[in-house]
């Protein structure tokens, strides 16, 4: 038995409610945190930051957000791209209108603004359910993109409608703008991802989380036992959009530095994030990270393998990459419909019994 919990007893309800009740898990978690905060920043370079770590962390935040809405509250949304755009444009307007205020506050405010917009578009969820709702959220996606493209105020009347992130600093280190160093980018995203994951964990283990899950699992019954569907659904939309808005703000300001709404926040973004949570695992915080890692890393790996390793022409590689990504998605869904998180949990369950089969 490699993985044991025998001897790991809880003596209070507080201990019993902690995030990693099993000691081994707790250690693994602390070790991962230590590596992420204390080691990676010193060895990261531009390529790793920009191609892997920063997008991974930002998408993990977005995935967390969508997972709260879809995985926990059961409301499928395809409007993630649009909400990310709200975050991006909000932070852009805030950055350029109040340059003297710290960027962290801007990013948080951008999340707040997105939360409000999210609630607005969440209103139909009271009537519309299932795939009808999913498709209805596309209205948000397309409308928001159109709005940011159309109203010049949002992009400060620039000729082409592109927005550019000016340089902003935290403690004297640039975190946005072209001069940002790789560790700075990485760290700000890491701090946000870490803090938000913690918040998500808190919300989902408490009463809010239970209300969301109740609505997800059986909305009528939830209402009859006392869950107010209005507040439960709207709060899910709000929290989810808050996360997604922050992800959008970071994506634009820290990662891309410049963005054009239709291109950076198009419908593909919505699907990408949805993929992440499904591959990672609906209703799982760990799954959001796992899914984001998978979807960010896979194309990079495949590209390096097919073009760099095998020397195939780029277009052939790109097409085959599409096929492989598609096939892998299907494969994963077949192998474990509940995502990487469940796969991991099952592995642990098996390890616990190992070497016995049942």
């Amino acid at each position, binding site marked *: 038995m490699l993985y044991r919990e025998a001897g790991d007893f809880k003596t209070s309800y507080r201990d019993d409610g902690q995030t990693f009740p099993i000691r081994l898990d707790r250690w693994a978690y602390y070790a991962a945190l230590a590596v992420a905060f204390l080691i990676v920043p010193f060895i990261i370079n531009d390529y790793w930051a920009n191609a892997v770590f920063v997008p991974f962390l930002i998408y993990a935040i977005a995935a967390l957000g969508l997972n709260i809405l879809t995985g926990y509250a059961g409301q499928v949304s395809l409007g993630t791209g649009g909400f990310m755009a709200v975050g991006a444009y909000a932070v852009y307007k805030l950055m350029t209108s109040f340059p003297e205020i710290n960027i962290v506050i801007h990013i948080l405010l951008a999340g707040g603004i997105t939360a409000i917009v999210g609630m607005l578009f969440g209103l139909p969820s009271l009537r519309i359910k299932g795939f009808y709702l999913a498709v209805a959220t596309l209205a948000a996606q397309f409308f928001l*993109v159109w709005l940011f493209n159309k109203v010049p105020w949002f992009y400060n009347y620039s000729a082409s409608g592109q927005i550019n992130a000016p340089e902003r600093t935290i403690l004297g280190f640039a975190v946005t703008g072209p001069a940002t160093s790789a560790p700075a980018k990485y760290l700000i995203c890491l701090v946000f991802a870490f803090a938000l994951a913690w918040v998500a964990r808190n919300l989902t283990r408490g009463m809010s989380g239970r209300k969301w899950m109740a609505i997800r699992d059986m909305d009528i019954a939830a209402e009859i036992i006392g869950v107010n569907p209005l507040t439960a659904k709207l709060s899910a939309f709000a929290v989810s959009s808050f996360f997604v808005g922050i992800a959008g703000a970071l994506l634009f300001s820290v990662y891309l530095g410049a963005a054009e709404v239709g291109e950076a926040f198009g419908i593909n973004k919505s699907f990408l994030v949805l*993929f992440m949570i499904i591959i990672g695992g609906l209703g799982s915080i760990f799954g959001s990270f796992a899914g984001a890692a998978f979807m960010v890393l896979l194309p990079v790996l495949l590209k390096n393998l097919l073009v760099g390793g095998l020397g195939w022409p780029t277009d052939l590689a790109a097409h085959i990459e599409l*096929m492989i990504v598609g096939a892998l998605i299907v494969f994963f869904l077949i192998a474990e419909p509940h995502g990487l998180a469940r796969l991991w949990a099952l592995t642990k369950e098996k390890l616990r019994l190992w070497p016995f089969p049942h």
Partner: protein
Amino acid sequence: MGGNLMDQMFFAAEVLLNGLMTGVMYALVALGFVLIFKASGVFNYAQGVLALFAALTLVGIQQGQVPFAHMINAMFGTHIEHFGWTVPSVLAILLTGAVMVLLAFLIEKLVLQHLIGQAPIILFMATIGLAYFLEGLGDVMWGADIKNLDVGLPQGISETIETATAEWFGYGFFIDRLDIWATLIAALLVAALVGFAQYTKQGRAMRAVADDHQAALSVGISLRFIWVMVWSIAGFVALVAGVMWGTKSGVQFSLSLIALKALPVLMLGGFTSIPGAIVGGLVIGVGEKLFEFFVGPMIGGATENWFAYVLALLFLVFRPQGLFGERIIERV
């Protein structure tokens, strides 16, 4: 001044009419969705890509392209492109139909079979995976360049209608001949499909499967057969949509994006209703054209992408299952 007003009205009528026709084109794509949703509860995102794949295959067969030529050339340094023959349209369509059946068979065998009883969202995701795969496959098989699709469907303004209306009303209406054909074909398709679903044994079995997979299995309905059948039909509908849209704007990647235009149509018509797809298509087509035309200029245009969705959304707020969708049975 009066004449001007009349002109305005005629023009509005013209926009409306063209909206109807465009709606039919959307409905063609939506129909495939409905079929698959009805029979398996699967929200098939890959329907658009299926249309692209069908159109690519059709052109490829028609022009005697060597499948996977690019890959073969890249691997073996050869220079093959074409077999050097062309295939008549009708035969090519039949062959493509056969390919679509084969594809349906493979999809069932490799994907759906393993996902029986999973949550709808999982199935939905699987179809997105499928969409990626087919998109890549289509490109690898037939190349990513823009292709011309010509199966002899006429295109361009119908001059008969233009001159006739010019004589009657003093205003020549613009109607695209392709749209007229699309309307005819769509009407035929819908009539056939409705008859099939409602009045045949297999159609009933298909609806049974949609309601309850396990129960369907328990009465001896072979899910595999029903799914292969439905996906084949959907593949055929995709082929029709692919031919129409391919004739209209060439066969290339963006063809798969028409799926996005079909979604609001579905919402409005109801995911499970074949006539709903048509009616939804008409409402969306007319709605978005009129809106773009009358309101669009005031708010900067390019409203078509979102307006259809907002229209469908508003509509759903009042009727959550769409116009003709099955009422959602809510009991505890």
